């Protein structure tokens, strides 16, 4: 290839090649190679998942009721979301219904995960792509205080407070333990915040570190423990006894009051700190409109947060469901995870093999047979790849497609789908933010749009928690304390051969699990995770995946400091732990960059 047209992009691999590896800060590996032209604008992008994921094979022959516990370990971060997809898949296969309270509690757990994950992502995994920590050392605490007070009535905003933070940061940097901050390209011209805004953001980085410990207590209350809360096929594994006083295992009024107060504080933190920070940072980058990729063309969300137990139809799902293709925002298609023609995974450019690789396979028929081979234009050796050959197989990630289209998943997909469906809960916050920033709707199809949608979704999720909590309390007060349905717990009640699927919206996008149960054991299990959608390589038609598309046509301020590449990839909240997990050879988590 030298030039190739696809999805409105012109791929051109003739310019200098830049390799960034690894890209993620936590949980998993990813490598990106781009070609830049003479102006350092990206003209070709290649995204490689470098780790093999084989969870499916571990599950073969196991008890379907245990699958959640294994799938919870696929990923070190979004554990609960895999567990949820798994119990739903088993329930779908076996026709098990769950009580209303179980549905409410699962929604509370999932919404809690959304808020927690978004908050940690924004402040701890993504903010430093926008915020220059070192510049915060030059800030004036007095003007920082004025800035903070102009944005929000959050109480921690005095000059003394910011001076204290600055001193702590100085001591930390002086100690040489940059630790958390070693990943940054401090001083890069792509950083746009003034020193005061940088200091404010660093202060909130620390506050968010501290605050996240509150949110996860909700998982401890309902899931029995954190990390790795417990789940149950047929409901939730938590008994409720309102009058109980410290009964072991049972959730009582004292625990519920704790949940209520955490929800209230979460809403306050998100609305008074996270959203104002997001708006302020976006304001300084409002003309940095790169990274949209295919977000204006093809978006997918399965939807989540059923308002009615056991109803997973579009009308019941509060988190939007549907597919947008070919940039036609006037039509949202329904998505059926059981339709073999809709979701298919291709492996023409992945290190797996199918009997016929021109065709995709639905997950129920999914094959996970590894086939590591490198294309003829690979530079380097099998064990020291200097440059990947993207015309051949080049990733451990498969290429899932919806009716043949690469699809972006995640908060931006959910918000755009909710917006075009006319749902005010998604339309109004987007319109309000764009008005504040004086930007048109199209501006949302960008790296910054993805980051903004995540923040707006954190707020949405926090408020929805309050709503579901009230519903739970009214159920309990009316005497309905059922949390599990064990009618079909006994495998003797199961059919001999059944298939099912379960889905959820993980913080980073649509997650589906497909299960085939034969003779009461798992015959086949396939998970298509959000980062498989977003990080997918090319397909037999030569279509590029969402990560690759999002990097296209982005100018780099400095080719040897690919801050813009990290910024855009991080905006997807990539989580390749689903492919496996971190292996850091020398304690450094810096991206390795090679320019050729």
């Amino acid at each position: 290839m030298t030039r190739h047209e696809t999805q409105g992009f012109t791929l051109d691999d003739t310019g200098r090649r830049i390799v960034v590896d690894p890209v993620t800060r936590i949980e998993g590996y990813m490598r990106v190679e781009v070609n830049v032209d003479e102006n350092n604008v990206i003209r070709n992008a290649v995204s490689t998942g470098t780790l093999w994921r084989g969870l499916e094979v571990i599950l073969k022959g196991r008890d379907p009721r245990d699958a959640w516990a294994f799938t919870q370990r696929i990923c070190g971060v979004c554990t609960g979301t895999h567990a949820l997809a798994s119990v739903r898949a088993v329930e779908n296969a076996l026709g098990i219904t769950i009580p209303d309270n179980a549905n409410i509690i699962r929604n509370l757990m999932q919404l809690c995960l959304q808020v927690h994950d978004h908050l940690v992502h924004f402040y701890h995994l993504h903010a430093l792509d926008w915020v220059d920590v070192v510049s915060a050392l030059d800030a004036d605490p007095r003007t920082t205080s004025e800035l903070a007070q102009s944005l929000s009535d959050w109480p921690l905003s005095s000059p003394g407070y910011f001076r204290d933070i600055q001193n702590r940061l100085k001591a930390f940097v002086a100690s040489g333990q940059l630790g958390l901050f070693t990943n940054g390209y401090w001083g890069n011209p792509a950083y746009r915040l003034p020193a005061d805004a940088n200091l404010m953001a660093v202060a909130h980085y620390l506050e968010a570190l501290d605050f996240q410990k509150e949110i996860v207590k909700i998982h401890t209350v309902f899931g029995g423990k954190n990390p790795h809360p417990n789940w149950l096929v047929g409901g939730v594994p938590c008994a409720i006894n309102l009058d109980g006083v410290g009964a072991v295992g049972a959730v009582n009024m004292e625990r519920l009051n704790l949940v209520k107060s955490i929800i209230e504080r979460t809403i306050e933190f998100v609305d008074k700190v996270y959203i104002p920070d997001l708006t302020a940072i976006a304001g300084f980058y409002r003309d940095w409109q790169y990274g949209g990729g295919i977000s204006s063309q093809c978006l997918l969300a399965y939807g989540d947060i059923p308002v009615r137990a056991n109803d997973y139809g579009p009308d019941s799902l509060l988190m939007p469901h549907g597919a947008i293709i070919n940039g036609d925002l006037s039509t949202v298609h329904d998505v059926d995870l059981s339709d073999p023609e809709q979701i298919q995974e291709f492996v023409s450019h992945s290190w797996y093999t199918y009997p016929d690789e021109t065709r995709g396979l639905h997950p129920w028929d999914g094959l996970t047979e590894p086939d590591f081979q490198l294309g003829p234009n690979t530079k380097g050796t099998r064990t020291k790849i200097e440059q990947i050959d993207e015309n051949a197989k080049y990733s451990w990630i498969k290429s899932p497609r919806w009716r043949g289209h690469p699809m972006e998943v995640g908060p931006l997909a959910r918000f755009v789908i909710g917006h075009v469906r006319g749902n005010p809960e998604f339309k109004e916050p987007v319109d309000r933010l764009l008005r504040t920033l004086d930007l048109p709707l199209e501006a949302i199809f960008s790296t910054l749009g993805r980051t903004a949608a995540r923040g707006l979704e954190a707020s949405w999720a926090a408020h929805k928690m309050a709503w579901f909590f009230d519903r739970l309390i009214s159920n309990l007060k009316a005497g309905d304390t059922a949390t599990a349905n064990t009618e079909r717990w006994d495998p003797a009640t199961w059919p001999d051969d059944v298939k099912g699927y379960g889905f959820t919206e993980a913080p980073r996008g649509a997650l589906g699990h497909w299960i085939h149960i034969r003779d009461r054991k798992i015959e086949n299990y396939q998970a298509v995770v959000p980062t498989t959608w977003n990080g997918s390589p090319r397909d037999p038609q030569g279509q590029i995946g969402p990560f690759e598309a999002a990097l296209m046509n982005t100018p780099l301020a400095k080719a040897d400091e690919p801050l813009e590449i990290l910024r855009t990839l991080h905006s997807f909240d990539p989580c390749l732990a689903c492919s496996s997990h971190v292996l850091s050879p020398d304690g450094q988590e810096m991206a390795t960059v090679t320019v050729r």
Partner: protein
Amino acid sequence: MRTDPQALSPFDPHSDPVLVLGIGNLLWADEGFGVRCAETLGRTHVLPGTVTLMDGGTQGLYLLPHVTAARRMVLFDAVDYGLPPGSVHVVEDGDIPRFTGAKKMSLHQTGFQEVLAAATLLGRLPEKMVLIGVQPVDMSDYGGPLHDTLKARVPEAVALGVARLRDWGLSVGVRAGEVSADLFDPSLAHEPFEAGRPSADEACRFGDTRVLARMSPCSGRGPGPSPGAGVGAKYDDRAPHTRERI
């Protein structure tokens, strides 16, 4: 070091919170060592109520709340010390993160190194920490077993942890008979996990591009673990990290 005022009082073994944390991914062969140590400790010993025994998995930064809540911490993990496989080695306090900077340490240590850095930044790093680590044989066998060499080291590592807790003045009892650990769902407990594991023939389980030097065809197609490949080869052949850093 802790800087919050309440921590300036002397450690009280009867009331101050202590965290015993096993980290790692139990789906990845020897990577599960830390979690199996925590599991074994819970099955064989009785801990006082001030001690939290935790399967930290690979949660990285999400473990921060638990770490900052602890006054002292015992950490179990698979660590690449560059020692012979199965070597148990103890690292203390400030050397834990520094050691990780000197040489690769554990699979998820970046995640955990960040936790320690964040705790430091918040001024709430546990005042005493001990890392009880073992040198793994193989961490790339996805779904594979804990190697016998490491399995044999679990009791030793657990004993070191227990001894440390007792040194700190905590009263740790020995259980008369083993009970099942309530650390996680019973299906993940060591014996059922390994008993239900498909064979490597049924489920090819190799690792990633950085370990491909070890791989030979599996089922006649893809790569698979090649017999006789040493640990050294695995650690030396990680292509992405041989390049110069910027």
